């Protein structure tokens, strides 16, 4: 893997390309390829050109940062002042927020160039991006397959070189799983390391913004640019000063392998990960077996907590202040009910209903309260595992990218595909997914590296070893902006 951001930045710094020139190249490629791939749902080319001009000034004045002038995308659930932000839902049609998410504000200040908003499952509820109101994005590696989700559009855009990097959000794997399906890198930082202000909430105690990139180096650069305490987000917290240093130092690193992570995983995926583990062992890392019995509880716990929070978070979509409003109704109450009934998709309604159920009187103790207790069990068992190792290696998903339309049939089976990613969100840990070979169909396999809370730098550095040694290769797709 190569750092796309560093390479592009070098061209901009040397004056070989201007940011505006680079931006136009991306725009041309997006115009050419996006109609098929459907990675972007809202294009912000006017904004991009303005950003690029500002970036060129920054560069000429010697005020450039590593991300200055580099074109990127935001998931459609990150608020952008005056620019459509719709969570790929009909209910938010036309919504132009009048404030910026903290991450966009930070990137804008560093001269980033916003190309557009990328496709996703409606309100980030899904693992294939097929619940998007705008239709699913296609996996650039094999367009008959899904991108994964929910940040599928961002992963597709990065994979197809239609953006240098993307910001996604990860509530139960929504950055890592699509990154794995599209053969790119996806990093979910520690809960609180990146401000959630401006992220349209799904499961507030689980949601975290992070980068989708073509390399671990890029992931670290973007992470450094967006992280840190934010007064506007009371759940955010300070992160270490300075740049995340990548050395790929894995000698004596203790890598934990929990057998529970490999139950029900396809042999191909298990084989790919075993190979990677063996490479690290050869480099001097120690492999430690650990056990996290409560891991299998993580999935139902996740769905209960995420849906409970979602049922509350999505209550505000009532047609009064923004977005879609039902056309005919008999009272304000009726307007609200009709707006929501017509505005939300099927999966969203199902999760709202589940969330309402687990919070309602009579069921609260049996579901929500119990799930909160079990969440602590998962958290505590993971913490226990980290007493024996520095990082955990695990598959990102039990399978590679499905065929389009497959998940429509069996809801629960699709939920099960989140089994490897949700424990990290439950426990608020940092984790990265890096490419780890391909299956027999040539579809990318992803491997997760998981760290304890606030060991984001260690997670990135561990992943960087695979990048440095060319053990991890991003999918190589025709087209897009290439160096």
């Amino acid at each position: 893997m190569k750092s796309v951001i560093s390479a592009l930045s070098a061209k901009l710094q040397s004056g070989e390309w201007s940011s505006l020139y680079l931006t136009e190249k991306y725009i041309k490629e997006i115009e050419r390829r996006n109609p098929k791939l459907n990675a972007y749902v809202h294009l912000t080319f006017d904004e991009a050109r303005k950003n690029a001009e500002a970036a060129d000034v920054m560069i000429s004045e010697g005020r450039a940062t590593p991300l200055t002038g580099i074109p990127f995308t935001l998931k459609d659930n990150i608020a952008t002042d005056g620019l459509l932000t719709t969570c790929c839902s009909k209910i938010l049609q036309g919504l132009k927020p009048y404030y910026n998410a903290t991450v966009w504000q930070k990137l804008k200040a560093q001269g980033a160039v916003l190309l557009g908003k990328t496709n996703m499952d409606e309100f980030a509820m899904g693992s294939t991006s097929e619940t998007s109101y705008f239709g699913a994005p296609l996996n650039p590696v094999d367009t008959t397959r899904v991108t994964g989700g929910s940040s599928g559009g961002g992963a597709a855009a990065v994979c197809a070189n239609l953006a240098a990097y993307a910001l996604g959000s990860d509530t139960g794997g929504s950055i890592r799983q699509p990154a794995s399906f599209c053969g790119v890198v996806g990093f979910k930082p520690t809960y609180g390391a990146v401000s959630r202000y401006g992220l349209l909430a799904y499961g507030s105690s689980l949601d975290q913004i992070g980068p989708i990139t073509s390399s671990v180096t890029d992931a670290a650069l973007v992470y450094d640019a967006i992280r840190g305490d934010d007064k506007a987000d009371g759940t955010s917290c300070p992160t270490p000063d300075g740049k995340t240093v990548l050395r790929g130092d894995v000698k004596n690193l203790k890598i934990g392998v929990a057998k529970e992570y490999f139950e029900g995983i396809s042999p191909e995926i298990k084989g790919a990960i075993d190979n990677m583990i063996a490479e690290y062992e050869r480099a001097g890392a120690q492999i430690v077996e650990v056990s996290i019995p409560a891991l299998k509880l993580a999935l139902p716990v996740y769905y209960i907590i995420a849906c409970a929070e979602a049922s509350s978070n999505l209550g505000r979509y009532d047609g009064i202040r923004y977005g879609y409003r039902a056309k005919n109704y008999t009272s304000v109450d009726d307007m609200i009910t009709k707006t929501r009934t017509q505005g939300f998709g099927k999966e969203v309604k199902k999760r709202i209903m589940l969330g309402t159920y687990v919070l309602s009187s009579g069921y609260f103790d049996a579901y929500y309260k119990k799930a909160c207790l079990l969440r602590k069990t998962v958290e505590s068992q993971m913490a226990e595992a980290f007493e024996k190792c520095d990082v955990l290696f695990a598959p990102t998903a039990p399978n590679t990218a499905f065929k389009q339309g497959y998940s429509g049939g069996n809801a629960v089976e699709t939920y099960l595909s989140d089994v490897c990613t949700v424990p990290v969100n439950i426990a608020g840990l940092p984790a990265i997914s890096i490419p780890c070979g391909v299956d027999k169909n040539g579809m990318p396999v992803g491997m997760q590296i998981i760290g304890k809370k606030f060991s984001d730098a260690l997670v990135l550095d561990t992943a960087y070893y695979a990048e440095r040694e060319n053990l991890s290769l991003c999918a190589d797709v025709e087209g897009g902006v290439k160096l």
Partner: protein
Amino acid sequence: MSVDQKTIKTLARLSRLEFSDEEIEKFAPEFEEIIDFANRINEQVSGDTESIREVVTRTVGWEDLREDEVKESLPNEKITSNVQAENGYFPVRRVVK
């Protein structure tokens, strides 16, 4: 586990959603499937789940709270920029046929 129509209707009312009887018919089994899935939290797990060790939950202290200092509000045109405002209000016509 079976979820009866009445429960679904109550949940729909609380969720401000509407389902026709026909839709409930279709929705009920799907919803049951999900409830069954949620019930997996009751599955026994090998290993020690009883003695949950104290997990450190993050808290905030006095200094982390916001100071009571006025920040300028946004102009009304911004606040109401996503609707057709009337005299600065968010209007909802009570009946639209």
